[in-house]
């Protein structure tokens, strides 16, 4: 009798396991349904056409119905850009096979960062231009574009490399609306960006 009481029956163990599984399923479901939607910030309308590392024109119409991540950098930047590119590469590797997601990096040093320089940079980074555009163009238009995204970019002779710029990544949804800013130098922030892109892909 005592022996029977101490050894739970097979049916009892299966019931217990099933209960735990159902509980986990319910908790997971609750987490998904209670996630706060991403805020809708400003709508970006960029009136300029730039040129990418494949010498192809790039304008905002190409990003219609796509989720994209935009940032500003320059290839000879000795400070934050290499860290930003290391982090952006994580986003690239995660979504490079998903045609609904594109990355867009603008150089703020177009005099040095010509199409040839960007092509060499992209090749070394091992990226495809149609998945991650590195664009150059008219300097004033690029700086205006940074302002349209709500980001800082300017020349400063006293700064390392001669330029100051924001280290943020901007997440833009399929309607051209900014849905978030993420520190491009912080792994945890970019983890959040990767998650938020996944969430946006499922947004109605």
């Amino acid at each position, binding site marked *: 009798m005592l022996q029977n009481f101490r050894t739970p029956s097979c049916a009892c163990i299966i019931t217990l396991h099933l209960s735990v599984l159902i509980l986990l399923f319910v908790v997971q479901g609750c987490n998904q349904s209670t996630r706060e939607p991403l805020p809708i910030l400003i709508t970006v309308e960029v009136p300029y056409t730039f040129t990418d590392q494949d010498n192809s024109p790039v304008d905002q119409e190409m990003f219609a119905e796509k989720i994209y991540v935009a940032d500003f950098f320059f290839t000879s930047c000795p400070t934050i850009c290499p860290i930003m590119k290391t982090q952006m590469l994580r986003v690239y590797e995660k979504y490079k096979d998903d045609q609904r997601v594109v990355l867009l990096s603008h150089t703020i040093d177009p005099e040095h960062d010509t199409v040839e320089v960007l092509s060499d940079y992209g*090749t070394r980074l091992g990226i495809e231009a149609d998945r991650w555009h590195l664009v150059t163009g008219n300097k004033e238009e690029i700086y205006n574009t940074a302002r349209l995204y709500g980001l800082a970019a300017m020349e400063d002779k006293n700064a390392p490399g001669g330029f100051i710029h924001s280290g943020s990544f901007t997440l833009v949804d399929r309607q051209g609306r900014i849905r978030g800013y993420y520190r491009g130098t912080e792994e945890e922030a970019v983890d959040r960006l990767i998650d938020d892109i996944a969430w946006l892909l499922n947004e109605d």
Partner: protein
Amino acid sequence: MKTEYHSIRRCTLVLLAAVTLLLSGCSENGADAVVYNKNCASCHGRDGQGLRALYPPLPESDYLDKRISELPCLISGGIRGTIVTGNKTKNIRMPAFANLTSEEMSTLINYLQHRWGKGGATVSEQTVAQWLRSCP
């Protein structure tokens, strides 16, 4: 009594292991790493891993050990073009770090050498200054 002895011995061993672990981390995160972290880590990475073909990894560089005397000039003057390391020719662009003092340079060289080279003798500030004077 015997149990107590074993318990103290076990605690001592755990403490020694913890101290060893902390000391081994000093060369990576202590004063020696400051010059590297400030000037080099953003491209070559905190662990010298580099970034694909853009920024070369440091552990496989033969500028450590074999060509250590060339390293101060290379760091000070930067690189724009091809360099040969081992049996590979690489097209490299690296900014110049001409503002590093010979003290900072010797700290950096010794850090690189001890962390990713085969160790070797510590290079003095005077030796580094001499190497820098003979830069091409």
